[in-house]
């Protein structure tokens, strides 16, 4: 009787093996299909929401987004320490409306399901700890972020401020106004969430959830002149190259006049050096210079500064800033002063300023400094990434000197003492009838000029509080200077 008993034993083992094999199939091979099945949303969401989501902290460790334990079935609620100021950085995390920004992009890490946390998840299973999400340390400097946000909101500006560390590409601040409060979207009260969502996404509203720093593109106006100047310098011209000083020129093959600001002569002579033309922001000089350089050289230089890059992520996807295509000579002239065929994000303009500040080396901008595991060990740290040598160090030095002159020539409040800022302002026309629409005010700058540690780009849409009379110097420059001041004062 023992032989059949042994065979029965084998049959029993086969049964158990079959079960384990099938369990492998269900839990390992098909696991993802089942997990992601539409019918299973409830379980996945409940699981995810009830997991302790990782923190988002600023570069100095200040918590930006945290969780608070609740006694409802979701167990944790997302809490943003200073919601509106940091909303463009953090994004939002809503139970009903999904998530946005870093919350969405780094969701796997924050909710703890990322593969890099695999070993830790394993030990969580063994030790029975609640799986927790990893935390993100951002590059954002709270002083910069807060100052920029306060400067924009106290004046009621719509627009954006981006600040970078030119040597690394680390984003020190990224503000978009008007902003929204992600706390309301993270509410566990469905009605509150819905109300906030309706309000923030209302048709014809002021689009608070739009992250203008990376999602909106604007004509750069005169700030673009630094790129044209860079192309000219790289092409063998010097800062002393003489350009036209005419108060107005006629665009080729048209009757359209292109005037200097207030139709003034560029300086006192009939020609002006490139340095002077940039300092005075003479349109005619740069329009002609662009015409002389041609589309090809300008495009090449623009691309070296990171224009026309459709793939940049910081990790938010950055809308491509575009130069070209240039349809005709008139457009080429206009492109020399950052109009018509040029469009850029505030981030890109900060990158341009940062590239000049960094001796011509363009650094890839990034927002996430470190990934920190729940046990506080560092999983991953972003290393500064050199994107391209956009211009030679000599060109960069020359441009810096020219921009220093430009800053001295720029009006507006908030000048800093004891710090040399290199800057360029822009007053960009836009809309169908540019004369009737208040222009966008730009300011790009870096400081201290001798050894730059911060580069900023500020845009204030539609003239800010100055209406049709707005200029980059009057409207945007004070914001930029305040941000630089806050950053340098804190160091």
């Amino acid at each position, binding site marked *: 009787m023992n032989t059949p008993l042994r065979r*029965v034993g084998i049959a*029993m083992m086969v049964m158990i093996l079959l079960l384990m094999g099938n369990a492998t199939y*269900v839990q390992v091979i098909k*696991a993802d299909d089942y997990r992601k*099945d539409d019918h299973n949303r409830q379980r996945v969401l409940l*699981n995810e929401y009830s*997991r302790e989501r990782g923190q988002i902290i600023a570069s100095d460790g200040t918590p930006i987004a945290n969780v608070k334990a609740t006694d409802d079935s979701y167990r944790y609620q997302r809490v943003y320490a200073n919601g509106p100021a940091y909303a463009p950085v953090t994004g939002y995390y809503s139970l009903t409306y999904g998530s946005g920004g870093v919350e969405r992009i780094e969701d796997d890490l924050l909710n703890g399901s990322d593969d890099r946390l695999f070993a830790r998840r394993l030990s969580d299973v063994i030790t029975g700890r609640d*799986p927790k999400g990893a935390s993100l340390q951002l590059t954002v400097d709270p002083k910069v972020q807060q100052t920029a946000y306060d400067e924009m909101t106290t004046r009621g500006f719509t627009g954006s401020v981006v600040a970078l560390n030119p040597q690394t590409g680390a984003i020190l601040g990224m503000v978009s106004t008007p902003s929204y409060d992600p706390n309301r979207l993270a509410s566990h009260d469905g009605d509150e969430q819905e109300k906030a969502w309706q309000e923030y996404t209302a048709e014809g509203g002021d689009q608070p959830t739009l992250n203008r720093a990376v999602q909106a593109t604007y004509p750069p106006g005169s700030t673009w002149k630094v790129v044209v100047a860079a192309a000219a310098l790289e092409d063998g011209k010097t800062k002393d190259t003489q350009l036209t000083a005419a108060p107005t020129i006629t665009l080729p093959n048209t009757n359209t006049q292109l005037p200097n600001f207030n139709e003034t002569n560029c300086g006192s002579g009939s020609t002006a050096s490139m340095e002077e033309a940039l300092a005075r922001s003479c349109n005619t000089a740069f329009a002609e210079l662009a015409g002389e350089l041609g589309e090809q050289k300008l495009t090449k230089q623009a691309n070296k500064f990171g224009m026309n890059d459709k793939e940049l992520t910081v990790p938010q996807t950055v809308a491509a800033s575009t130069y070209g295509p240039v349809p005709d000579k008139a457009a080429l002239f206009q492109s020399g002063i950052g109009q018509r065929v040029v469009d850029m994000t505030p981030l890109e303009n900060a990158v341009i300023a940062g590239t000049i500040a960094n001796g011509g080396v363009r650094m890839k901008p990034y927002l996430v400094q470190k990934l920190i595991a729940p046990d506080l060990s560092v999983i991953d740290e972003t290393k500064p990434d050199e994107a391209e040598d956009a211009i030679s160090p000599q060109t960069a030095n020359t441009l810096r000197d020219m921009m220093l002159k430009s800053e001295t020539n720029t009006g507006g409040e908030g000048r800093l003492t004891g710090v040399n800022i290199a800057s360029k302002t822009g007053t960009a026309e836009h809309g169908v009838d540019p004369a009737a629409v208040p222009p966008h005010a730009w300011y790009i700058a870096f400081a201290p000029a001798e050894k730059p540690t911060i580069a900023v780009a500020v845009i204030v849409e539609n003239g800010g509080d100055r209406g049709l009379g707005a200029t980059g110097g009057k409207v945007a420059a004070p914001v930029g200077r305040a941000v630089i001041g806050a950053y340098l004062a804190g160091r």
Partner: protein
Amino acid sequence: MLGFASALVTAALILVEANQEQELTMQIVYYGLAYMALFAVAHLAVRKWAPYADPVILPCVALLNGLGLVMIHRIDLANEGEVFAGELYSAKAPKQVLWTAVALILFCLVLKFVSDHRTLAKYGYTAGLVGLVALILPGILPSFIAPEINGAKIWLTFGAFSIQPGEFAKILLMVFFAAFLVSKRDLFTAAGRQFLGLDLPRARDLGPLVAAWAVGVSIMVLQKDLGSSLLFFGIVLVLLYVATERAAWVVVGLVLFSGGAVVAWKLFNHVQQRVSNWLDPLATYDLPGGGFQIAQSLFGLGTGGIFGAGLGAGRPDLIPEANTDFITSAIGEELGFVGLSAMLLVYMVFSMRGLRSAIAVRDSFGKLLGGGLSFALCFQVFIVVGGVTKLIPMTGITAPFLSYGGSSLLANYVLVALLLRISDAARGPKVVPKPKPQQPAIADQYTVMVERPK
């Protein structure tokens, strides 16, 4: 090993509490101690009444039972305050703890009073009769005492609690079959006619067996308890095979089974439903009686993945009946593939130790009963785990020692007691009859002077 099992179970309980309630209370310590005390008593009972019994079996049972209690408690926590079918959910774990205590008492009693498993063989026919009656009872009794629950009419209710006599019938009938087959074993292999290369026993020898089997299976089908009938059928087949050592019986049995399955599928609506739920649970997801339950089980297992969500951190309460038939998918969700496999391995070790005892024991009845009991356990696991993981169609059946349910627990503890008894007999020292004082050979006898009588 018992201590190890206790520690594991207490640790699991702590995890559940920590995850679900976010706080630990002294209650855990009491639960842990109570559990440990229960099994300490069981252990002492084994030491006393079956000192040579296999030392691995009881810890395996303790581990499974403890894990089951933790899972039931965990699902209690999740369902706390919910309303099912108009009634507030009542916690199942305390009841199950009570059942465990009762089951362990029964376990001790069986160990004490069945001091030799061979005595059971004498009551083979009695056991068979009682088993059959127990099996039939809920089927024929009026529904106020034997209500139909979830489409199956297998319960007897007495006021607050209900039992499933079928669970006990399973063991009783196994005793009967084992006893019967042992007594007629020679006839099965020797007498009778040859048919298609198979030695058929004489009809009158085969009669009671076939009758019992047919009645059993048909009753099961009538009561719509597919899982139990499958289990029952498998056990009979294995006993027959082991007793006769003829593989042909297995072939015949499988053919019969396939035929029966097809017929059942054609005849019964609920069988068709089970099959289509099995083929594609998502297709019948929204239908009443459709694939919702199995799909949820698969989702749970899939979401648990390799390492699981962690005890108390999953959502096994989304699966209907998570504390009875689907308890293994709850375990798979929270402990993951690793936990589920570990659990299956514990079952395997347990049933293999049982089987080894059966092989080692010296009497045929013990071999047959031990083999049957071990196989029954393993097969039951196969049916239920295979069901919830969509390996085979789902047939309602409990997972031994894990699932909530008093009858199943009681019956399975009797099963373990019998296995331990058999293993005690197998491993114990041979009871060697005292050697008779040997007579020296006549030649070696020294001569004695016989004194002449005076």
